[in-house]
Structures are given as structure tokens and as C-alpha cells.
């Protein structure tokens, strides 16, 4: 039997400590340990993109990253984009353009689009499609997703701000339930 590891990382702007199995994926840590269920499991083998998160500024499939690998690093999930009151322009565009149906791919799609816009504030349609090709959507045919991303180009309204860390109470609750580690808030 393996021993759980303590991992400390900045998740959605908050310094967070949690316990995980050495083999546990980041996706499972987010969902099953930290109750950040925004990232979804569609395939668990890196082919659907529903679990996309941003790790140190880079878009990753969180099912292909181990929880222990994020020690000392920064992770942004869909919950880190905005709180209730303030959607980012990208999220607003997804709502306004009806760029979702079932919504299961949406958290990953948003993180992929954010990652693109963070690097290339003024992408072409081809670049948008190429960048989002790792995120499968079975409902929309992509048309309205591409239009929504296009709507926040060019330039000015792009950079989604780092919103206040949401779900603090929920995370704390989960941590208390797992009864082994403390939530540490960044000074």
C-alpha cells in the first residue's frame, strides 16, 4: 500500500495544501480531493480536453498530469476564471453566442481559449480552430464556440482577469472532511 503525499500548490490564486496518492491524476485531485468539479473527465487518456487546466501558464490535460507533479506550481481551473458577479469577457461571449449546449466540454474549452488568448491576443480563425482542436465538443459543431472566441478578439477585452479565488468554503470543507491537512492561505 502506498502512502499519500502532501502537495502544496497555488490553485486559482490560493496557496493550497492537499494529500493525494502518488499515482493520482491532477484531475482526480481537483475533483475528488479539492471538490473543484469544473474540470470534467471525458476519456481519462488525454484525447478529449474536457479536463483542460492551465499549469504555470501552459494548457494541459489534467488527466495526464500527476497531482504530485504540481508541487510548488500554479494551476488555474475554470473556477478560477470568475466568480458569480463578474464573468470574464470570454465567458460572457460563450453565454451571449450560445457557444455551449450540454456544457460538459465548456470548462476545458474556456481554459483552452483563455490559454490561446493569453499568448496570441489577436488569433486568426485558423489559429482559433487549430488551438481548440484538442478539445472535443459533440454538441455544437464548434461554429458558435469559434464565434464566441472571435468576439473577444481583437486585443483589448482579451485578458481574463484572475478573479478572486472562489469556493474557499467548499475547499476548506473538503479538506476538513479528508481530515489530514490544512488549507493555507497565501499571505
Amino acid at each position, binding site marked *: 500500500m502506498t502512502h499519500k503525499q502532501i502537495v502544496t500548490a497555488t490553485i486559482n490564486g490560493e496557496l493550497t495544501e492537499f494529500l493525494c496518492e502518488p499515482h493520482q491524476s491532477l484531475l482526480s485531485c481537483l475533483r475528488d480531493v479539492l471538490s473543484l468539479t469544473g474540470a470534467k473527465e471525458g476519456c481519462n487518456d488525454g484525447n478529449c480536453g474536457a479536463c483542460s487546466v492551465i499549469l504555470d501558464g501552459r494548457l494541459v490535460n489534467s488527466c495526464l498530469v500527476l497531482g504530485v507533479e504540481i508541487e510548488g506550481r500554479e494551476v488555474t481551473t475554470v473556477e478560477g476564471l470568475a466568480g458569480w458577479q463578474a464573468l470574464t469577457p470570454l465567458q460572457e461571449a460563450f453565454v451571449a453566442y450560445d457557444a455551449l449546449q450540454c456544457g460538459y466540454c465548456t470548462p476545458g474549452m474556456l481554459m483552452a481559449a483563455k490559454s490561446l488568448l493569453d499568448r496570441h491576443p489577436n488569433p486568426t480563425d485558423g489559429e482559433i480552430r487549430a488551438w481548440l482542436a*484538442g478539445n472535443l465538443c459533440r454538441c455544437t*459543431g464548434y461554429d458558435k464556440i469559434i464565434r464566441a472566441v472571435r468576439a473577444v478578439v481583437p486585443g483589448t477585452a482579451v485578458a481574463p482577469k484572475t478573479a478572486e479565488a472562489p469556493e474557499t468554503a467548499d475547499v476548506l470543507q473538503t479538506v476538513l472532511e479528508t481530515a489530514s491537512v490544512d488549507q493555507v492561505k497565501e499571505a
Partner: protein
Amino acid sequence: MVEIKQNLIVVGSRPARVDAVDKVIGRASYATDVRLPGMLVGRVLRSPYAHARILSIDTGRAEKLPGVYGVVTAADLPPLEGDDAVGEKAFRDRELASDKVLYVGHPIAAVAARTPEIAQEALDLIRVEYDVLTPVVDVLAAMKADAPILHHDMRTRSLAGTGEKPTNVAAHFEQVKGDPGQGFAEADVIVDREFRNPMVHQCYLEPHSSTAVWSDNGGLTLYVTTQGTFSVRSHVVRLLRLSMSQVKVVPMEVGGAFGGKNSSYVDGVAAMLARKARRPVKVTMSRPETFMATGPNSGSVLRVKMGATRDGHLTAAEATLIYEAGAYPGSPVGSGSHVMFAPYQIPNGRLEGYDVVVNKPVVSSYRAPGATQACFVAEQVINELAGTLGFDPIEFRLLNSVKEGSETVDGTVHRHIGAIEVLQAAKASPHYTTPLEGPNRGRGVGHAFWGNWGACSSVTMTVNSDGTVSMVMGSVDITGTRTSIAMQAAETLGLPLDRVKCTMGDTDSIGYSDTSGGSRTTVATGHAAVKAAHDVIDKMRERAAQIWEVDVQAVVFDAGIFHVPDDLDKTLSFQALAELLPRTGNVVIGVGNVDVADWGSCFGTHIADVEVDPETGKVTLLRYTVVQDVGKAIHPMQVEGQLQGGATQGIGWALYEGYEFDAAGQMLNPTLLDYKIPTALDVPDIETILVEVPYPHHPFGARGVGENPIMPPPAAIAEAIYQAVGARVCDLPITPARILETLGII
């Protein structure tokens, strides 16, 4: 016939869908997100063989593993009894095999454990002894006299009666119209071709998941991902012999379904495990399990023959449809034969269908079940006839199109259809009127009829004392119907949309509603919502009459205002009257429950432009347009989304998708890497043209829209490829290799 409402304010507008914000902040709650105190993980042991007898199942070691709270097999089901023991045994064997496994992935046992790792270890400790039998995975091989038999009690059902020998052909039908022989004799051109397509999967991104918890008094609650909560309830009630009132099914957000979540796969097992473990249990499928052990669409073999005269009139059509049912009977072959020639006036015809069991997953519904391959083959032949006779493909279809009162080959009579309007709109579209230029490029057209569905829906509607309305519907929202149903209620009540909230009810809190399938929900549940709104209005008129001490007939409701004409003192807005309700006899609750028997069918025409690389066979979609009769678009943006999403799934059928099996019945590509579905790079922007020919039996004229758009893409794309490089490919998917083979290059 109802009077269709005009001068609409809410219906036809494009508000943000009510579930959108939850979905963009990651807070929408799906079945896999359910977490209950003390919840265990359930996992299913599945057959590694496509065809085998089970000699014994030993769960002893698994049960003793620390952290395991329960193991179940078919032996844990209630004893078989009753008149239909054969049918019941088949139903139960699909859930947990008792004596025989019929496909790779067939469930045999399940465990509930504290962690996924322990659950997996427990599965590894279950010992199953098999007598491995020869499988049959090819549908034509399965029909042969000496084929391995899946079900020894199965006899072919047909109009001639029931067969005498064990067989894999579960059903056979034949329908004839006119004199096909004479019709072909009158034809100047006849095209006769054979087509094949493999099984394809709905590929909803969210795998099946079910969480079960029992109360001490025998009540079962299930949190599920499903298109129909009442379907899940019926399934579990039948499996575990419970009463309907013992079972509460709670619908969660659904992460895609497309017909594949009409069936129940893990709900029964979750309930059995939770009862045995006396703890909540969640069972979630992996992606390979979803491919191998849920219900794809039938693979099939189809032969089609059509004839036409030189002046472009169809004289006869014949088709033989052989559909794989998977391991148990019930393929959608009837649906395929119903729709394939339905867009055309054909005086003579014959349709013959076979429902055949093979050692593969049991097929289920997938968006216009059984129709996409039937449309593919009929429309390929129509395109070939049009080309051979020198007709423009849309002109050829217009010349032969069904009209009001036309009777199809299978005897269906078309009523209130928009077939001609759709074809004319396609012909006049910006896409079709723009010439396609350049080498190795081609354009193709596909055209489809789909019948849609009506059936049962229930809605209740409570008027709150602040003038807002809380409504509960029994339909599961899989495509934005909370919004489209609330819009129809708001329109009827004369309220802005933000005053009407629509929620999905669980099976304890709302009346029976059929599954959200058959493109029926916006239409049929819309009927129920409008009926409930009228019930609310009538009850509020009565209340106003009581307050004003006048006869109820004197109270008029118009544009959100209750008033007595010619008496200005007797006027109350909806909100003002709502505020008085609690003190004048309590709030008002409206009820609308309907069984919709009249619903509109729909037609769609698709136009595809492609470029084919003649060296590699790679197909690039350049431009794509969907034209469809939608009756009345309740929420035009959502309708566009249905058309775009449906077309993209059809594009997947056309170019990429298909199960591959080895001879032993093992699926070779059960991942989203090896089973490719369209990505954002594979499709262009998809243009939509909404044709609105109102359906006269719906309050707003709406027709179902969701299924039709999956049907035309394979034929449109196949024809475009033919026009581009001269390769007429008759098997799906149309891979680069198939194109190069057809061209004789490889």
C-alpha cells in the same frame, strides 16, 4: 388544428440560455459530480469474450478483500417468475449475464468498494469460468444457416408468422407499393448499388454515471445522467421488482446524450450495490466501457435500386436493409426503411428489412435512429440518377418531391410539410448560387425526411406572490429546453422571460413524461407548458372574479393584464393579482399534462463543398450549409445550434467514425484517439437557413428539429467527393484509403 399565435415577443427571440452561466463557471452539476456522505465506488466486471457460456462465478475472494462492501451478480436479482420468463431473462441478462455472455463488455458482476483501486483489485479477484464459443461479428455471416447462434430460443418474426428454427434473424419485414417490376421496366436509367456502414457511437463527452442511495424504509434515490428519468424508473422497477413510488430518479445536468442516454446501463447495478453495501454507491463508466458496453447505432448492409425516366421522374425504388442489432434484437431497421424514400413521390416500391443479432454491443438510439445510413444510400442513388440524367440535383429533387397528401413507399401520407420550401430555399441559398471553382473540388447535396415524435409531457406551474412563476417539467433538458419551454410559458402568460423559471423535476415531484428523444421536447413539453399557462390564467381569472365579485366570464386576460372590459377600476396586472393570491385562497398552481398525438415532421437539405487531395485522399470541407424546415424557431440560436451540431455528427459518420472489430469480436478502437470524431479543425463554419413552415397543431407552429440534421451529411459529402475526383464511395466512413482504392491508386 389550433390557431397559431402571432405577434410574438418572447418566442422567436434569442435570450441567453438559463443554464449558461452555471456552465461557464464550472458550477453546473452532472451525475459524475454527485458526492454523498459515505459514498462508495462501484465497478463492473465485464466479459473479455464476445461469445461464451458462463460455467461458474466465484466472488468469494473479492468479498473478503478489506474495503469491499458488496459484490453482486445476476444471482442477486429477484427470482424469475411470471408468464414472460423468457423476455424477463433476456432483460435481466443484459444488466448482469447469468449463463451466457454475448459481447465483449457484457456485464457479469459488480463491486462496491471504498476506493477505485480497491474496487479494481476486487474485480481482479472474481473468478469466472467460461466455455468460450465461436462468435459471429459480421451481419451477413450471422444470417447464414450454419452461423453460431446467440439465442437458442430465438425465432424469426415476420408477417408470415414465427419461424421454426433457431436463428440470428430476429425479424424480417417486406412492404410493397404498386408494381416494382413494372416500375423498373418503365425506367430509362436504373442505379443499383450496395452500401455498408460500421457501428458508430454517440460519443457524448460525459460517460454514463449513476449514484444510488437507499433509505431505511426501502426507498431508492438515483442521481443519473439520462434523457428520461421515468425511463430509468421503469427500468429499475422492473429489474428489482419495486413499486414506482419507491423509486425517485433525480436528473442531473446531462453531458450530451444524442439518443444514447435513453437506455439504462449502470442504474440497476448501482441500486443493487447500494442495497447490498447499505451505503450510497456511484458507478461511472470509463470511455472504453462506454464504447464497448453501451448502445451504438447499427452497422448495416444496404442494397438500393432506383429507376427514373429520361424526363427525370422516379418510377420505382427497392431497398434491402440488413441491420445489426448487437447482442439482443431491436435494431432501428424499421426507422431506416420508413424514411429512406420518404422525400420522393415514387409510384412503385419495395422495402425489405432484417433485424439481426451479432456478438457486438446492443444497439441503442442515436439521433434519427437507423436513418442516417438509410438516407446516405438513398440520396447517393438519387444524386447518381440526377447526374446520369443531366439534372441539377436540387431540381431533380424538386421534380420528384413529395407534397401535401403524397403517399410514401411505406404508405405514410405527408401532411403539413415544408419539403418544397426547403428545397427552394437551398436552391436560392448564397452557398448554392455561388459557383465552386478550382481543381479537385466538388459540391454535393443531401436531403432528408424525419418524422419526429410527440408523446407524454407534464408541467406544473406555481404563481408566486411576487408575480414570478416557478415551473417544473418532467422532461430532462438535454439541449436547452428549460429555456425554450420557459419561453413558451412566458409568451402565453404575457410575462418577460426572466419572470418564468423552469426546473427539471425528479420523478416524485412531477407527472410522467416520456424521454427527451425523437426531437419532441420543445414541441410536446411546450404544449404542456402552454396548457399549464392557460390553467394558470383561468384560475387567476376566477380569483379576480372572486375579488371583484363579478362573473368569471366577465374577466378578460390580455397581454399580461386581467381586467373587466369597460370597468377601469377592475384592472390588475399579473403581478398585482399574484400579490393578492395568498390572502384570497392561496397561490395558484397550473397543470399541463399532455399526450401529443399530432406533431410535425421535417425536411432538411444540406450542401457540402469539398476539396480532395488526389495524392493522399484527404478530404477538406470548404463550405457547409444546412437548410431545414423548423416550423417556428422558438429560440432561433438554439435551433441553429441543433442544426450545426447534428450536421457535424453526420460529418463524423461521413469521414471518420466507425467501430472496428477483430474476428473474435474485440473492439479495436475504444478510445477517442482511435475512434476519431470531428474536431474544430475538421469542420468549417456551418451556415444555417431556418425555413419556417408552421405546423398547424402546435400553439406556435414549432416542429422538432434535433434529429434531421444528422442524416444528409454523408450523402452530400460523398457526392461532393465524387464531383471532385470521380470516386463514388459506397462504404462509410469515406476514409482517404477508400477514396484512393476507389480511384484504383492503391
